[in-house]
C-alpha cells in the first residue's frame, strides 16, 4: 500500500512541474467554458427548465465540466500505451508490483494534481462573470469528493483496458481516439445528459461514462440528497468493479502473448 502511495505522490509532483502547460490548459478550459455557458443560456432562455436543469445550474455545469476534463483524462491515453508500443512494458512486467494497481496509483496522483490546478481555476474564472452555484452543505461537498474520486478510478479502469489493446494493434492512436470520443459524449461533457432525448437519457445515465462528469456534478448541484447519493455511489462502484476486472482479464490474455518489439 505504501508503495502505491509513493507512486501516486511522485506522479502528483511530476505533473506539478509543467507550469506553462497547466496555465495554457486552464486558459483553454475557461474559453470553452464561456462558449458552452452562453450556448446553454440561450437554450434556457427559450425553455426555463429541462429535466431538472435550469439556467444557473447549467452555467455551473459548463464551468465545472471544463474543470473535470483534464482530471478525468478524457483525452489521450495512459502512458502505458506508449510503453507497450515501444516494448518498455516488459521491464514493468518484471517488477514486483501489480501492473494495474501501479498505473491506478500513478493516474490518481495525476488526477489529484489536475483537480487542484485544472479543476478549480476555470470554475473561479467562470465565477467572475456568472453567478455559479456552490454547495453550502458540507455533506454535499463530501459526497461530491467521493463521487469524483470514484469517477477518476472508473475513467482509469476504462483507459487501462483501451491501453492494453496496444498489445494487439501495436499503435494506440486509433482506439484511444475512438474511446475518447465515446467517453466525451456519454460523460455529459459535450452537453449535460439532462438535455438528451427521453429514449437515450436513461441509458446514457446508466453507462460507465456518466461517472466521469454527469453524476459528480449532479451531486455537486445538490440533486441527490441523503440516500440518493448512495444510489449514485453504488452505480459508480459497480462499473468500477466490472471495468477493473475486465482489465485483469485482458491483461492476463495480453501477457501470454507478449512479443517485444524488435527484441
Amino acid at each position, binding site marked *: 500500500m505504501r508503495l502505491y502511495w509513493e507512486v501516486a505522490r511522485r506522479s502528483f509532483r511530476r505533473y506539478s512541474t509543467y507550469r506553462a502547460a497547466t496555465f495554457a490548459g486552464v486558459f483553454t478550459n475557461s474559453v470553452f467554458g464561456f462558449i458552452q455557458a452562453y450556448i446553454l443560456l440561450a*437554450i434556457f432562455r427559450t425553455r426555463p427548465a429541462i429535466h431538472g436543469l435550469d439556467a444557473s445550474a447549467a452555467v455551473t455545469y459548463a464551468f465545472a465540466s471544463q474543470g473535470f476534463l483534464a482530471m478525468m483524462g478524457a483525452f489521450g491515453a495512459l502512458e502505458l500505451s506508449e510503453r507497450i508500443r515501444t516494448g518498455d512494458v516488459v521491464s514493468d512486467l518484471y517488477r514486483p508490483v501489480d501492473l494495474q494497481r501501479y498505473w491506478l496509483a500513478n493516474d490518481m496522483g495525476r488526477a489529484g494534481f489536475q483537480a487542484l490546478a485544472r479543476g478549480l481555476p476555470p470554475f473561479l474564472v467562470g465565477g467572475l462573470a456568472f453567478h455559479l452555484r456552490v454547495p453550502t452543505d458540507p455533506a454535499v461537498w463530501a459526497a461530491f469528493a467521493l463521487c469524483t474520486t470514484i469517477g477518476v478510478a472508473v475513467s482509469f479502469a476504462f483507459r487501462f483496458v483501451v491501453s492494453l489493446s496496444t498489445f494487439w494493434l501495436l499503435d494506440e492512436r486509433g482506439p484511444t481516439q475512438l474511446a475518447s*470520443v465515446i467517453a466525451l459524449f456519454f460523460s455529459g461533457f459535450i452537453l449535460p445528459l439532462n438535455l438528451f432525448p427521453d429514449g437515450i437519457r436513461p441509458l446514457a445515465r446508466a453507462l460507465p461514462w456518466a461517472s466521469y462528469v454527469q453524476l459528480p456534478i449532479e451531486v455537486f448541484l445538490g440533486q441527490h440528497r441523503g440516500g440518493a447519493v448512495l444510489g449514485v455511489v453504488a452505480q459508480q462502484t459497480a462499473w468500477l468493479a466490472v471495468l477493473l476486472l475486465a482489465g485483469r482479464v485482458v491483461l492476463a490474455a495480453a501477457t501470454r502473448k507478449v512479443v517485444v518489439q524488435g527484441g
Partner: protein
Amino acid sequence: MYVHLVRARVRSDWQYRTSFVLFTLSVTLVTLLDFLAIAVIFSNIPRLAGWSLAEVAFLYGVAGVAFALGDTFVSQVEYVARHVKQGTFDRFLVRPVGPLLQICADEFAFRRAGKLVQSGAILVGAMVAVHGAWTPGRLLATAATVLTGSVIFSEIWVITSSIAFWTVDTQEVANSFTYGGNYMSQYPLDVFGPWLRRLAIGVVPIAFVAYLPSLWILDKNDSIGLPAWLSFAAPAVAALLLVPARLLWRTGIRRYRSTGS
C-alpha cells in the same frame, strides 16, 4: 512537391491498418457527435436565438468544411512546438523547400479528411432543408465563404503555432482559438455575450468564418444590428490576417536557435 511528401506519409500510416481505420472512423464520429449535440439541443427547443435547426446546421456545415480544409492541409504546423523542443526543426531549414510547406506535408494525416466528408454532407443537407431560393449569387457566396473560412482558420493555426518559437509548453492555448473558434462558429453569434462577440469580430475574426456571411446568404437579421457590409468583409479580413501570420512565422524562424545539442 506537397503531393509527393503527402503520399509518402499516407503510405506510412497505412502500415498500422486497424489503428488507422479506427482513427479515421473516430474522426468522422467526432464530427458526427458535434452535430448530434446540435440535434440534441433542438430536440428541446424549436429555435436557438431565432435560428432553426436547418439554419444552425448551415453554420455548422460551412464552419466544419472550412475547418476541415485548414485541419487537413495546414494544422500540422502545430507540430512545430515538438520540433522546436526536440531540436529537430533544423532539418526543415536546411532543405531547399519552404519550412511551412515541409512541416505541413511531413505531418500530413489523411484521417483528418474524414471530417471534410462529414461536414460537407451536413452542409449540403442543410442547404436543401433551409427555406429560400438558392440563387447563383448565394451559391457562389457559400463557396467563397467556405474558402475564406479555411484561410482564416489556417492563418489562426500559423499564428498560434508561431508562439512555439518563444515558448514551447503553451500549445494548448492554440486550441482555444482553433477548436474553440470552430465550436463558436457553429452557433449564431447572437447567443454569446457582448465581449465575446466583439472579440470574434475584431480580434480573432471567427465571426467571419460562417456567421456574418450567412446573415446575407440566409437572409437573417442580427439582433444587435451589425452593419450589413460585414457580411461581405470576410475576404478582406482573411487577406488582412495574412500580415500578422507571415510576420510572426518569419520572426519566429529568425529567432529560432536550435537546442545546442
